[in-house]
């Protein structure tokens, strides 16, 4: 199954019946899958007039208390950023998918990881965070979609699957759970009509009194602290005796693992740390590794974005080098192996 289609199917199995999208490469198959499936199961597929409208339809549907989702690729995500900020400011859950392509501007349509900063630091204005999940296989795309919906509901915040064109277009065997387990979260705040049974609900992000706005933001950040304490996901690969740690995520981690295996065959003690949640970032895990390894290498399909978080976590204890290709160029295992050899002094 194609990555894009697998994410769509997983969303449906996770109880999503409301999808709002706008065509953009390389996420197209996801929308097409939704368009085919949703009418048959009584769901909504709506092709909006713009990315901006699509994310605001998600805002509306999420306000009503249903599981809602939109998907796009890099330039489209930029357009959605206003709506995402309002969704976060209104404490609404939803799932967003970014099948990244090269940027900036119209950029290109080849795989990229140049939206890391956007996803983890600056998707829209204001003090807020998204849950950001970075799958590296089609199977993991499926499991993380389930998780994204559950955690978004649990913490009342938007969750993003940060994929890329390679994963979106990749075909791999994938297994779905026989009976999907979906967390049932009560939504007493939903604007679904009070039916005369409760006071009226308001979904809003406007607080004109500064102390009141501060209070809401601070409360949200207390929730973020709980997320940070409980939801970090990270994979350690051959790290037991590693002297060099390569930090990488998403599709790039597959290339890195293959380079790690080649380096191991040459006797180099190297391992790989793969953040699965980019926010919350596995700071503690990387800080702990800094006490064991001699050097870090960060590999990304960008000019170096996650490397900044790695350096913050390492906090000067060990050198952190960077290797990346960008613009849609995919690094090869041989290139990464060269970098590892250089770092290991071989």
């Amino acid at each position, binding site marked *: 199954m194609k990555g894009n289609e697998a994410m769509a199917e997983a969303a449906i199995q996770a109880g999503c019946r409301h999808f709002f999208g706008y065509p953009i490469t390389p996420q197209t198959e996801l929308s097409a899958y939704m368009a085919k499936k949703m009418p048959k199961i009584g769901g909504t597929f709506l092709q909006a007039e713009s990315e*901006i*409208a699509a994310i605001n339809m998600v805002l*509306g*549907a999420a306000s*009503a208390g249903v599981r809602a989702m939109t998907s796009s690729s890099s330039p489209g995500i930029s357009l959605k950023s206003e709506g995402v900020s309002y969704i976060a400011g209104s404490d609404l859950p939803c799932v967003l998918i970014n099948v990244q392509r090269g940027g900036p501007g119209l950029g290109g349509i080849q795989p990229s990881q140049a939206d890391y900063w956007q996803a983890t630091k600056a998707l829209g204005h204001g003090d807020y965070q998204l849950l950001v999940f970075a799958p590296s296989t089609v199977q993991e795309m499926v499991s993380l979609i389930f998780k994204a919906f559950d955690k978004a509901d649990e913490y009342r915040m938007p969750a993003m699957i940060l994929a890329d064109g390679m994963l979106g277009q990749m075909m791999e065997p994938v297994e779905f759970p026989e009976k999907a387990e979906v967390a049932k979260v009560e939504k007493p705040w939903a*604007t679904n*009509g*009070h*039916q005369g049974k409760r006071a009226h609900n308001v979904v809003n992000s406007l607080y004109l009194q500064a102390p009141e706005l501060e209070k809401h933001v601070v409360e949200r950040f207390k929730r973020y602290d709980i997320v940070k304490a409980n939801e970090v996901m990270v994979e350690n690969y051959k790290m037991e005796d590693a002297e060099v740690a390569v930090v990488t995520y998403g599709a790039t981690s597959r290339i890195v693992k293959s380079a790690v295996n080649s380096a191991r065959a040459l006797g180099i003690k190297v391992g790989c740390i793969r953040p699965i949640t980019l926010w919350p970032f596995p700071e503690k895990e990387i800080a702990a590794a800094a006490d064991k390894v001699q050097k870090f290498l960060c590999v990304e399909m960008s000019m170096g974005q996650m490397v900044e978080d790695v350096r913050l976590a390492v906090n000067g204890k060990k050198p952190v080098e960077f290797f990346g290709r960008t613009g849609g160029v995919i690094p090869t295992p041989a290139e990464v192996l060269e970098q590892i050899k250089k770092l290991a002094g071989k």
Partner: protein
Amino acid sequence: MAIVFQKPHALADRPFHYCPGCTHGIIHRLVAEVIDELGIEGKTVGVAPVGCAVMAYDYFNCDMVEAPHGRAPAVATGLKRAIPENVVFTYQGDGDLAAIGTAETVHSATRGENITIIFVNNAIYGMTGGQMAPTTLPNQVTQTTPYGRDVATAGHPVRICEMLSTLDGVAYAERVSVDNVPNVRNAKKAIKKAFEAQINEKGFSIIEVLSTCPTNWGLSPSDAFEWLRGNMIPYYPLGVYKDKTEEGTL
């Protein structure tokens, strides 16, 4: 003693923040009266805009959502698609609906989205202090057209009801005014008809309400009504522009 006049239940018991002489209060009340008369408060969800009515969510007793600037019809679309049995309305000003939100307005209309839009046209951006709106009249002086709106450089005003009436998805479009008692009564009738069109699943309905902004027009409330009658109604004629309801002729 019998109560002959009281606040509609759907209208929250709190003071409006609107300027003296502003007609938002009248229009809020008309919407609330219609919600009461149709007995739909419990299944109605309103969407507040960005603009003077940004805090409309505080003034209605039905569930309310505050939308980003211009996006109220998209938010309403999401609410309505999620729970089609609910009655969903937006309450938007001219800048919100006819400038930044033009795409959302036109496309929710052409989709025949089964929602109701209350469009308050006062020919100016009120909340930000009186700048040119898409509906500002030719030669009208605003903060950003200090020499009067020059259509050669600032373009022409948008006639929303006329424009939307060409779209197949629109079930009901009417322009009304609240400048005098008969017009207020007629405005309420129109708003009720628009909500009924939605309840009867006819599709998109919009009521454009010509409204005054004494503060930013620099006029007294009564002079503002005179200005509305003398300048706005000639450019924005009142009437039904589209009617696909049972009684409709089109």
